[in-house]
C-alpha cells in the first residue's frame, strides 16, 4: 500500500479501533495491505473484545 492508499487504510484501522474499542499492535496496524488482512485485523479486534 502506498501514498494516499495507506492513508485510507490507516483511517480504516482507526475506525476499527473506535468501533471495537480496542488498540491493535503496531505490527497489525502497519502490515495491513489487502482486504483479507483487514478481515484478519477485524477478527483479532473482535476476539480481543470478548471477555477472557
Amino acid at each position, binding site marked *: 500500500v*502506498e*501514498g*494516499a492508499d*495507506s*492513508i485510507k487504510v*490507516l*483511517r480504516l*484501522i*482507526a475506525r476499527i479501533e473506535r468501533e471495537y474499542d480496542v488498540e491493535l499492535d*503496531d505490527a497489525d*496496524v*502497519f502490515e495491513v495491505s489487502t482486504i483479507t488482512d483487514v478481515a484478519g485485523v477485524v477478527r483479532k479486534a473482535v476476539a480481543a473484545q470478548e471477555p477472557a
Partner: protein
Amino acid sequence: VTLAAQQTDQHPTNQHYDLDPRVFGVFLDPSRKYSSGWYTDPADPDGESLEAAQQRKMDLVADLVRARPGARILDIGSGWGALVLHLAGERGCDVTGISPAPKQAEFVTARAAERRLAARARVVTGSFEEAADLPRGLDAVTALGSVVHMPDLPAVFAKARGLLRREGRMYVSESCFRNAAIRARFDAVPGTRFVRSTVFGNGELRPLSELVSAAEDAGFSIETTLDLTAHYRRTIAQWIEGVRRGAAELDAVEEGMAARLEHYLEVANAGWGYTTKHYALVLRNAR
C-alpha cells in the same frame, strides 16, 4: 504559485508559507495562527470554536513562559504574527518575530500598525539559524511548529539558549514521529514524502526523545512536556471545515487548491497517534 513548484530561488520553507496570504485567510482563524489550538476537551465536537481555541492556546503559551508586561520575547517561525501580536497586545510584551517568508513580514507589519503595536511588535525576514542581529538577554523564546523546518536541532537549541537570560524560558512545540522505530519505518514512505517535499520544503520529523536529548545537550532544564496530539487533530479537523466552506475562494486563487489543501490536511490528520504525535516542551535556562 503552485504547491508543488520547485522554486530554487526561495528559502525551501517558503513554498508553502509564502503562498498568497489570501489562501490562509480562508481556512485559518482570524488571527491566522497556523499551529495547534488548545481545547477544554479536544474530543468534544461541540467544544470551542477554532478562534477561541487559538486564543486559549496563545494564553497557555504566554503563561508557560511567564510572559509579563515588558517581557522581551523572540518568536521563531512567527508566521502571520498571531502570537507576536497576542503577546504584544494582550500581555504588553516586547516581541520580535522571525520568519523566512517575506509576504508574512509585510502582513504582520501592517497588522501591528493597524493595532498601534508597531513600537513593541516587529518581524525580521530571514532564517533563525543564519540571523546574526537577534535581540539578546531575552525573557522567552517561542517556536511553535518551526524547528521541524530546521535540520540542525542541537544548533537551534544552543542558539536559542544563548539568546535567553538566566531563568529565561523556551516554549517549543513540534510534530514528532511516535518513536524511533516508526521513524525508521516511515521516514521514506510516499505519504511522509508528500507532506515533506510537496508542501514544506524542509521538514524533519523527530521522535520526542530526540527533542529532549537535544534540549539537554544544549544545557536546558526541561520544565514541562505536554501531549497536544488530540488538540492538533481537532484543530486540523476545523481547518478542513474551513477549506470546504471556502473551496470556491481557494480555487479562484489557483485551480485545484482546495482539493490539494484538503488532501494534505487529511494526510496529516490520519497519522496522529499511529505514526505521529504533537508535543510541547517548556525549557528553562537554569540549573
